[in-house]
């Protein structure tokens, strides 16, 4: 049986080559660039979500304050 058709052989090759390629990809400047971009995007989304949530809380507090004023409880 030809060695090229041996499944185990290809597993060994994949085992040796795979990590090397992954390491190369991880260390590539492009990868880093995308990762940083992705993280920054994520951080911005978190900050925007927090801001939007705070806006909602503020508006709710203002409505609540108006209601209290109207009811004369403040």
């Amino acid at each position, binding site marked *: 049986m030809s060695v090229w058709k041996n499944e185990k052989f290809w597993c060994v090759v994949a085992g040796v080559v795979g990590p090397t390629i992954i390491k190369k990809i991880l260390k590539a400047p492009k990868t880093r660039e995308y990762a940083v971009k992705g993280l920054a995007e994520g951080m911005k989304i978190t900050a925007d979500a927090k801001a939007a949530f705070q806006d909602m809380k*503020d508006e709710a507090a203002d409505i609540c304050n108006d209601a209290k*004023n109207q009811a004369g409880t403040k």
Partner: protein
Amino acid sequence: MNFKITYDKPGRIRFRAGAYAFERVHEPRIHKACVSVPYVQKAVVHSENGGILLEYEDGYREQVIDFVRNLDVANLPESEPDTEYQLQELDTQFKNRLAFMIARRYLAKLFIPAPIRTAHLIYRGLKFVAKGLNCLGEGKLSVEVLDGAAIGASILQRNYESAGTIMFLLNVSSLLEDYTKARTRTALTASLAVKVDRVWVVKDGVDVQVRMQDVQVGDLVRVRSGSMIPVDGTVAEGDAFVNEATMTGESQAVHKTVGKSVFAGTVVDEGSIVVSVRAVSGNTKIQKIIELIDRSEDLKASIQSRAERLADGIVPFSFIGFGLTLLFTRNITKAVSILMVDYSCAIKLSTPISVISALREAADRNMTVKGGKYLEEFALADTIVFDKTGTLTKAEPKLERVIPFGNRSEEEILRIAACIEEHFPHSMARAIVRGAAERGIDHEEEHADVKYIVAHGIATTLGGERAVIGSKHFVVEDEKIAVDEAEQKKIDELAGAASVIYLAIGGNLAGVLCISDPPRDEAAEAIRMLRERGIKHVAMITGDSQKAAERTAQLLGIDTFFAQVLPEDKHRYVEKMKAEGRRVIMVGDGINDAPALAAANVSVAMSDASDIARETADVTLRSEDLRDLAELRALSTQLMERIQANYRFIVAFNTSLLAAGFFGILAPSTSALLHNLSTMAICAKSMTPLKRA
């Protein structure tokens, strides 16, 4: 700062500068800058959306907008967050954590596959089990063991829903407890810090009272007998014996003269000094206050310790209940229900929360209580003992009359007395000096060095003759000055109920000065209120004459009085009453009251008390109103009632849950839910203010 106004109504305006307008670190600075503007009443600052909410006095809208427009965030001075901001932060953190906990619990069910959730739950459950085993390993059969057993049993039964509910509720309870303690501690610190002393600063030769925070390095601060030195510095003028026990542990007072260093927190026992400020130690005082609060939690009320012992004591019975239920019903589900419900965590949580909330409430009402056990003692006391001068009476006695004997005139006696007495900041001495001034009598220094005999009187030499002035005990008994019958009769007739100060020169009685000390306006009402709130016996101790004491006792409705008591003997009367089985509250203000204050079950120092009395006392009033004592009595009684009511509710409610579990009416998870919800409810209720009597 650029912003848009998102809300604008009279007295309330909200600015929004956007998400990146300023950082979180700037929040306290902006908050401080805002609240320090005179017309701004409240500020809320959020860095998340760059929001600033201001509540302001009507009519200042334009000024408020201008203020925010000119706010230069980057250049605001760094500052410690103020209390209001700290409290807002604590509230926000609590709400966020609670929201996070609830969201995690319910969102996890939607998004995380069941096997992963189960694995995570088992992992978290094992932490509780490990904690329980730890306690068991240390030989303690505590609430942690019970929690661990209940969670462990639920997991073993594959009842993951129950286990998850118990853990969730336990975490919420613990979050609530931490929040309550942190909030109470912060508020209490603030209430106490407001009191941080005012000091006397010598400016251009005149003593001016200023706030502690306004004292600068290089200022000259005057410190008198019985007062605490508020700053680190060097003695610039005068000399004094300083008790440095708080610094060195040495109880013997140290003689400090010009050029010597003195330290904040030490107390002037005798003498008067002017200190040149080297370091302003506002922080030292605050530090002491925080230590006091931390210690307050250790100074647990015995009802609190009893509750905790009881809570742990119940745990074995829960296990016995579990065993018996299993034995009789052969139903593990019913047996686990017994483990799910216990009395202990509710008792253990609600009691300290009640106590610490009451401490905060007392502080908000201008009363500093140094620990839960003093509130408990205050509620249980049946006897109150007052020092008379300065406590029951106004701190400003008045010179009523001068009775001369021998050849000297009234004016001459008063001149000599004022001349000797003016060196000492005692209330009686001040009355004599003021009396002389009111009568237009000038007095020049005619005497040699004066010697002050604490709480007795003064001895000096005048024109080569020994002159003594002070109480009858000091002048007649100690100094052996003879007072014949006719003189005594005259004194008794003319002095009436006034206190009498004797002046003797050259071994003969030269004259007496009659000083009246009218009771405080609210004293009688305060005593009546105390009686209404369960005080059975009201007593008064004084160094004054029998007559003066009798008159005051009659006026105020006091049951027992002890007159002509020597300062060193005051505590004996307190101890005697305690030996008779009474629980005694002692109220005093002077340096000489300190031993009696220490001897009582619980002691109270008035707002204008000496620092030594304030240090010794368990409770310090920050107003001069004696009715605060009745208010404190009401507060402490209500606290005890609340603890007892909580206790009754916890026992009744959880017993019914146990019974429902035993008869299979409630499933273990429902029992756990109701039990933990009731625990949280009782903790939340314990945080509410005790109602004003």
